[in-house]
């Protein structure tokens, strides 16, 4: 096992997920199996290979630039329409300062 329960709880905290005991146990096993599988990428020597962050095709570099015009955004009412809780034209949340 390369992945421990401690790893899973650490990653869950980074990802803002609160896992229960059953989920934690399941993800220890799942992450371990998937991460063992992806080890196969290390069979390839990629020291001279550029990373591909975007799909590239033949095109001028500025192909997708656009003019910087201002355009209307959402009005306040529309922005707040899906809010779980709102008040005074704002999104309301639980207490932020915890101590």
């Amino acid at each position: 096992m390369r992945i421990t329960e401690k790893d899973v709880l650490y990653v869950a905290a980074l990802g803002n997920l609160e896992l229960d005991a059953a989920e934690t146990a399941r993800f220890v096993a799942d992450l371990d199996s998937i991460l063992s599988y992806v080890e196969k990428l290390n069979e390839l020597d990629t020291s001279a290979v550029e990373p591909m962050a975007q799909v590239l095709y033949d095109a001028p570099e500025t192909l997708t630039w656009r003019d910087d015009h201002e355009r209307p955004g959402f009005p306040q009412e529309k922005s707040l329409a899906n809010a779980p809780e709102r008040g005074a034209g704002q999104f309301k949340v639980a207490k932020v300062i915890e101590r």
Partner: protein
Amino acid sequence: MSLDVSRWTIDDVQEALRSRRASAQEICAATFARIATENPKNNSFLTLTEERAMARAAEIDRKVTAGEPLPPLAGVPLAVKDVILTEGIRNTCASRILGNFIAPYSATAVERIEAAGAIIVGKVNCDEFAMGSSNENSAFGPVRNPHDPERVPGGSSGGSAAAVAAGMAVAALGSDTGGSIRQPASFCGVVGVLPTYGRVSRYGLVAYASSLDHIGPFGRSVKDAATVLAVIAGRDPLDSTSAAVPVPDYLAALDDPVRGFKIGVPREYFAEGLGSDVRARVESGLAVLRELGCEIVDISLPHTEYAIACYYIIATAEASSNLARYDGVRYGYRTPESASLSEMYRKTRDQGFGTEVKRRIMLGTYVLSAGYYEAYYLKAQKVRTLVARDFSRAFERVDAIATPVAPSPAFRIGEKTADPLEMYLSDIYTITGNLAGIPGISVPCGSVPAPADGGSSDGRKLPVGLQLLARHFDEARLLRLAHQFEKARGEV
């Protein structure tokens, strides 16, 4: 007898409107009648938009009566995957976390199909946030395959494929990040297109993995899929990744000859793991291409075996970042039980997301976390270069590539849910297209007997697709080849 539009094509709709054989409102009503009988069997629709659809159909009928020119999708009943926003309509992403989310704007693809006269009949089911290969990861229950209700429709765009296959829409929009249009098209016996990365605007598509996500069409014929693609393709200033490459007239070229096309058949796609029945169907498909005058060429895409590992690092890394926005503050579900903001985030996300989404957030967060970025994410991006290079080298020699879509026909509901890795491995033939950003299509290629795996479905026939892939922005060739393949193959 009431109007039956369940096998109609776009041409049938247009012809009926022009000849006044049926009004757009009658076609729309017949579609909702069909949905009323079929949807309970397969659970494709999450939201129906009947009132809105009938109002739009009335608008089309007004145009017909006034003798105005009809746009290319006038009166065509169309289903939209529930990850593509339609203003004023609920958009769930098949997730509890967005169960009550009303889209405040429409995706560009939706605006374009509506401007072209399409009638959106509803939003269709999918895997949660488009993460899955079977549509079993929906918070609203799985979609069932119209060819066999005990089997999956494929995923993640399972509802889009099933809606078209079951005659509940003439065409549909889906999204494809690793095969999510082509594999369900194959499983449901319809046509599904993965356009080139940048061909169709993703503005208004809820992001899963931004460097791999595409919007594309489903249809019951290649021509229908081409018609929808022509409407949604093209530059959109609201999506900086959409390309300013001219959109050719796909329909005009459909019947141009394909004689002399070189079709590459990558030997790695016919290796271990491909079911023998599927192999036989695909090989018979290659014979059809040969009869059309195409030259079949053996090629190699040597990095194929690394594609799944590469994909599941890149896709989950991007997903973990994209899904950070669901925190219960501005929209969507919020846990009722929290004493502090950080607790609210964690509980909201734990209660709002399903298991597969959490699994991918966990994996993506892990591979991006301090100390692992280079070993996983950067490594995967380099391997992605190698996979993409395999294709560009192949396309120096061939005009298109033909492969299976999936190793098997539709599998049974529950068959692969125990082992996530096994589910991931079934995406092998489709993931490579997303990594390279090239266009692809799944076109029906006959059927195979349902595997004798117990249950009532034995003896049934299950559809199988043929995948064709082409160079960046060469959809015209892809559609032309697929259209003539479809005509030449006929109904087998």
